[in-house]
């Protein structure tokens, strides 16, 4: 629940393409984890020595992290509005039910109640869009990495790594722009 009444501008920002710092940190953190996972495969299966290839691993992981975070952001933004519309009735019912049961809620005027519903709808849509975006992009990224790992197996392991990881990141970012 917000500590104070939010203005229309603040609510509009939250509903639009704006991504908070917290969400941004979440995206980059998740992106780093999922981009670093394939290092295990390239170390243990492709027998790439981590010390010898440290610079390559670091550079490609950072690049991939950026692409994955970009994809997270795009998919989240495109899903948020759809989820918001989908959840409108259920969130309204939940919020109104909670307000009607509480003493403070009973004293609220109609416009305050509507703002509360709008805020809750935004929060739910934001949460679901974020989690679904991470799930969708992680699944797609790992599938692309596995396919590329197999497809480029005849090439030098270093070339395989660059094409698979950076390639998966690029494809993910590209697909997210059309999502």
């Amino acid at each position, binding site marked *: 629940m917000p500590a104070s009444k939010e203005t229309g501008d603040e609510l509009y920002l939250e509903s639009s393409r704006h991504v908070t710092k917290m969400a941004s940190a979440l995206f980059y953190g998740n992106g780093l984890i999922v981009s670093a996972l394939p290092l295990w*495969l390239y170390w*243990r299966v492709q027998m790439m020595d981590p010390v010898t290839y440290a610079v390559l691993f670091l550079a490609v992981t950072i690049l991939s992290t950026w692409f994955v975070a970009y994809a997270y952001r795009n998919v989240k933004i495109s899903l948020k509005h759809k989820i918001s519309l989908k959840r409108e009735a259920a969130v309204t019912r939940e919020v109104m039910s909670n307000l009607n049961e509480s003493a403070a809620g009973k004293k609220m005027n109609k416009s305050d109640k509507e703002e509360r519903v709008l805020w809750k709808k935004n929060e739910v849509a934001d949460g679901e869009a974020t*989690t679904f975006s991470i799930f969708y992009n992680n699944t797609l990224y790992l599938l692309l990495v596995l396919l590329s790992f197999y497809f480029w197996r005849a090439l030098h392991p270093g070339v395989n790594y660059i094409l698979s990881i950076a390639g998966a990141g690029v494809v993910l970012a590209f697909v997210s722009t059309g999502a």
Partner: protein
Amino acid sequence: MARAVNVLSLVLFAMCLRQCHAGAHLLVSKIILNEHIVEGKDMTVQYTIYNVGTSAAQSVFLNDESFAPEDFKLDKGLLSASWDRILQKGNVTHTVIVAPLAPGVFNISWAQLTYKSVDSDDRQVGFSNSPGFIQVVPYPDYSRKFEHHVVDWLAFAVMSLPTVLLPWLLWYRSSSKYESIKKTV
């Protein structure tokens, strides 16, 4: 005239063969059984000694110095072996397992065999075939191409699962809650 010379040559050759193989005569073959020779992995070398002579061989001693200790580690067996007696038309097999210590090309030469015939005191010396140059493949190249890495793939699956399952669970928890509220509206 030419035909007579040819016939005479053949007769003399056959007589020589019979004379040459009088007493024990040992032939030894040296074979590397591995299809792939890999750095750090076992390489099996098999020696087979055949007695093609007319009598048994005794005090048979096989010695192979073609696997230098700085290049090959002796895992199982000995590079020297001896037999008291090998009967006429008999054969024996000796196996040694060595492991190459480094990748590269190595020249594997012959093994030496010394023995005496039962009806003679003269010590005879023979040599096996020479396998020649062998290519020892680096272990990472072999592992990448031939090993299945089942444990590594399982570990990757275990590490990847939370990155997919956790966000899905969080989404599903919220989604199912509001879907059930929606159904009661």
